[in-house]
């Protein structure tokens, strides 16, 4: 236990502490840093762009995490059955994880493109062929949420598949003898015994939803980074642009600290609440 803990603390704890200290400074990476106390945090509270990024991040998390988890669990359950071409299908669902994100952005841009795009032509009978999905501030979060789910599905599917394998078959056999139907077996055997994995997937999905960066970056790279008027700017993208575009490294660190505290709060809450619904075989029948 010790080596991993110490390693994590050394290689990530120290930089995090430095970033924490930087959040009380004004620093542009070239001039010596100046200590400014809580000024960065005061600015943050009054910064509309920050609140906008926070709102976008929360909206994306709400749109992508429940749907993404439901889809990946469904796919994992189905692909855990004896089906023809099962391995092929599993590989297909895993492909987004290994597909070049640049290639993906080209295809997704095409899918959402008005006039030529796949989606527009599917929706053409509804008169929705020429919708500017990727530039309209009121629409852009939908494509980003879709790509987020697409990117993560294979990853969560793998975790769920592994979790499903850990359920002892005797329990299913016993349930079958008791005359449980398919739904009952899912509800009384699969769901409780899968709960440690469900917790894992939920915590990881929420963490990654709060760190959404790559998909926004590439989905908006051909229009304007972060969407028109910051309409797709997430907290991670916001802090990155503050740091590397505006050279406000102190302010960016303050944003990072707030982001960290938000995620930490949500995660600690999940770990506390888990006692009510997560079932570990090692802790009792």
């Amino acid at each position, binding site marked *: 236990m010790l080596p991993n803990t110490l390693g*994590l603390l050394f290689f990530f704890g120290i930089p995090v502490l430095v970033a924490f200290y930087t959040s009380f400074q004004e620093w542009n990476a070239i001039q010596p840093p100046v200590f400014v106390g809580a000024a960065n945090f005061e600015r943050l509270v009054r910064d509309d762009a920050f609140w906008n990024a926070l709102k976008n991040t929360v909206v994306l998390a709400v749109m992508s995490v429940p749907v993404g988890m439901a889809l990946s669990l469904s796919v994992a359950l189905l692909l855990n059955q004896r089906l023809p071409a099962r391995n092929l299908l599993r590989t297909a669902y895993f492909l987004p994880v290994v597909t070049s994100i640049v290639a993906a952005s080209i295809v997704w841009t095409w899918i959402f493109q008005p006039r030529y795009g796949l989606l527009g032509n599917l929706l053409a009978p509804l008169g929705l062929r020429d919708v500017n999905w990727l530039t309209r501030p009121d629409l852009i979060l939908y494509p980003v949420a879709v790509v987020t789910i697409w990117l993560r599905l294979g990853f969560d599917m793998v975790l769920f598949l592994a979790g499903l394998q850990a359920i002892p078959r005797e329990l299913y056999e016993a349930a079958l003898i008791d005359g449980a139907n398919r739904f009952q077996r899912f509800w009384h055997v699969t769901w409780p015994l899968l709960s440690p994995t469900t917790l894992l997937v939920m915590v990881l999905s929420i963490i990654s939803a709060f760190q959404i960066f790559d998909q926004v970056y590439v989905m908006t790279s051909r229009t304007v980074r972060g969407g028109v008027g910051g309409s797709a700017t997430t907290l991670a993208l916001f802090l990155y642009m503050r*740091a590397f575009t505006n050279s406000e490294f102190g302010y960016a660190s303050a944003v990072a600290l707030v982001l960290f505290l938000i995620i930490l709060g949500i995660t600690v809450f999940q770990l506390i609440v888990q006692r009510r619904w997560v079932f570990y075989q090692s802790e009792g029948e």
Partner: protein
Amino acid sequence: MLGRRGNHQTPFYDRIPLPTVGVILTVLCAGAVVMVLPFLWMVSSACKPPAEINRLPVTWAPQNVSCAENLQALYATSPHFTRYMLNTAFMTIGRTLGQLVTCSLAAYGFARFRFPGSNLIFAVLLGLLMVPFQAIVIPEYLLIRGLGWLDLFAAIIVPGTFSAFALFLLRQSFKQIPLELEEAAEIDGANPLQILWRIVLPLSTPALAAFAVITVQAAWNDFLWPLVVTTSAETRVVTVGIALLQGQRNTPWNLLMIGSLLATLPMLVMFALLQRYFIEGISMSGLKG
């Protein structure tokens, strides 16, 4: 050897009526189309001449198949491409094995032993997973620079050996294993390390497979950090090699796509190889008796 001693059997399967199979397959295939479209475009573009790639509306089948020409052009532009791939492989293996050792030990500790502050320490470690990397890349760089590791494999492998994700995944999996198996081993005089090695890890094969798939994939695709700490062809990884193809003024899509495809193939092979560990259910009966 691992986990191959009768404790893994054919998993439990429902008998599904044929029409249901048809419906399930149809739904899954429809979903799969969306999942694979970008990949298919990557494959077809890897074999298109540059003029065809940016055609509007999007074209799918290459008219002039030119995989070989693109491959040749890739190596003409990026002569060290094979070296980049080997560097990536080396660092991925190093990080994965490192994580397997350090994280399985730590995860076992957190799953089984309670000591004052253990939950707090676990929460802090998990917290480190939550800090956006963009926020700590500069202090991290300064740390590695201070250690004198710039442009060395150690700069990527050593920090990459510690993972809060693997810790969490393995802890969840270990907590799934019924205690009585370990208690039995303990009575037989096994120490915790032996229990971890002989009982816990073999019983966690699916989780280990998931760990391997995800860790290997993450290490293989890692971009920002290797870019920041490496400068020479001897240490640079394939993701950086692909990024280098893209100039300010020109985007050679054919090269980007064939490069990305080459970089992806080992991951597909890995997934195909590890897949079989997801189709084996575990049975406790072999051990209980």
